[in-house]
């Protein structure tokens, strides 16, 4: 059985700047995988390319064994990927409930939509309290909840979370990672893209460490956390940065 998501020798360039240089990774069904690296390592470029939002200049992206490299983003999402983008990117002109409903666009069965909505309100009671408020009026933490909730509304097979800790207070970061753990325990496949590598590897089973658009280390979370290169990257050695 092929992994749910497989990235083969992915390359991404912005003009003449090569920001992703032959990255290969895979996420099997039921796994939680972390993609970690310093700011500018190319994490978000990889995810945007997986989602089809940034065109790949080389390599392949396979979802459930099917090559989707040339497919538009909406087709990839329809293949069962939920995506929480970096910076949340909630729809400020829609209220909370309608933001969530846009996330459930692919679900045609209204009963399922209501069930998903109730599930999200169960996970985030704060969103129920704010359901008729415009997205732009929410706090940073609430917007993060909304972005995750919106990505979950389509009942995805794989959830890609880009920088969940970005701009959040430490207590909210801990809550966000607790939620990711809970979702994973419930059986959701997760690809976690994170600058906060320590937190990400506490949650994930496997990980990839990126540096300058290349995977420099991969393995189980515990192997990665204790590896001298990983420690060097995060606690001393200077990284060469590329555009992200």
């Amino acid at each position, binding site marked *: 059985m092929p992994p749910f998501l497989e990235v083969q020798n992915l390359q991404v360039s912005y003009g003449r700047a090569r920001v992703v240089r032959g990255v290969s990774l895979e996420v099997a069904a039921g796994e939680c995988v972390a993609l970690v690296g310093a700011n500018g390592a190319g994490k978000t470029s990889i995810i945007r390319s997986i*989602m*089809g*939002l940034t065109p790949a200049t080389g390599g392949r992206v396979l979802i459930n064994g099917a090559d989707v490299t040339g497919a*538009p*983003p*909406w087709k990839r*999402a*329809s293949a069962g990927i939920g*995506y929480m*983008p970096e910076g949340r*990117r*909630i*729809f*400020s*002109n*829609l*209220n909370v409930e*309608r*933001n969530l*409903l*846009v*996330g459930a*666009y*692919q679900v045609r069965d209204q009963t399922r939509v209501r069930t998903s909505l109730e599930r999200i309100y169960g996970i985030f009671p704060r969103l129920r309290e704010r359901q*008729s*408020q*415009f997205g*732009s*009026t929410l706090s940073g933490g609430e917007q993060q909840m909304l972005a995750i909730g*919106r990505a979950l509304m*389509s009942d995805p097979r794989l959830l890609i979370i880009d920088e969940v800790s970005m701009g959040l207070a430490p207590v909210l970061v801990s809550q966000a990672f607790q939620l990711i753990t809970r979702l994973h325990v419930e059986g959701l496949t997760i690809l976690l893209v994170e600058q906060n590598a320590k937190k990400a590897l506490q949650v994930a089973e496997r990980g990839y460490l990126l540096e300058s658009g290349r995977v420099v280390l991969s393995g189980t979370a515990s192997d990665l956390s204790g590896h001298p290169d990983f420690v060097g990257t995060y606690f001393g050695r200077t990284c060469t940065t590329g555009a992200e």
Partner: protein
Amino acid sequence: MNYWMVLLTTVGIWVLLALSLNIITGETGQPNIGHAAFFGIGAYAAAVAGTRYGVSFWGALVIAMLASAAIGGLLGLVSIRLRNDFLAITTIGLNFVVVAVFQTVPYFGGAMGIGGIKPPQLGGLSFGPLEFAIVSWVLVGLVVLLSYHLQRAWFGYALRAIRDDEAAVEAMGINVRRYKVLAFIIGAALAGLAGCVYAHFMTFISSTDFSFNVSVTILSMVVLGGRGSVLGVLLGGVLLGIAPEVFRFISNFRLLVFGGILVLVMRFSPSGLLGQGSWLRERFARLRGADLHGG
């Protein structure tokens, strides 16, 4: 009496145009500075159908909507990959091309325009100013209902989300291109509807009736009322629709006044009179004790 009915009909046609542009520009965020092109296509389609082929007003309504929708859809498809600034320029270009075609092609009457368009008949009664006023405002009512329905349906959520963040919408599994083209088709069709009413109301049309100035006026109505707000755009259409009568003494400077209004609104209240976050809307919300609520 007739004066007021004529004014009511004229304002009704402006409001129809503003509401139709609101679907393209207000709801979906696609800049369209050449909306008068669709107005003109509808008017000419109705005029040609009526004068050359003897089609009734009611049949011409459908033909006008279909003709404008077809060109709107085509423009939407062609320009779907364009960035917003290029799309704005493309729509201006379409407006000029359409006016030039009407002005030069003999089939459309050339510089002489098309005259002799017969007023509609209903049960043996020929439409006068009162009937036109009723029909135009019944159509306004229907378009308002349609606009509210769109806002409260999935389609409307998708359009608004596209206005906020296209990439994020696409990542939700929504085919953004299809929705943007659909918005163009619906907006253009409704402008065509207004064009049909206009042609039959005036009984004579010429290319200058659909010039770029008209596009700027329609856009001013949407911006003044508040992009995306049905009630606001209706209000913007009414205010700027009656403005030429109120400011008749400065008719030569009408465009200057509209341009000035656009600049002032963008500077001091980018959300317009009743757009989301506008001062008036916030005041209303507070009065209703429902601050920050909306949709």
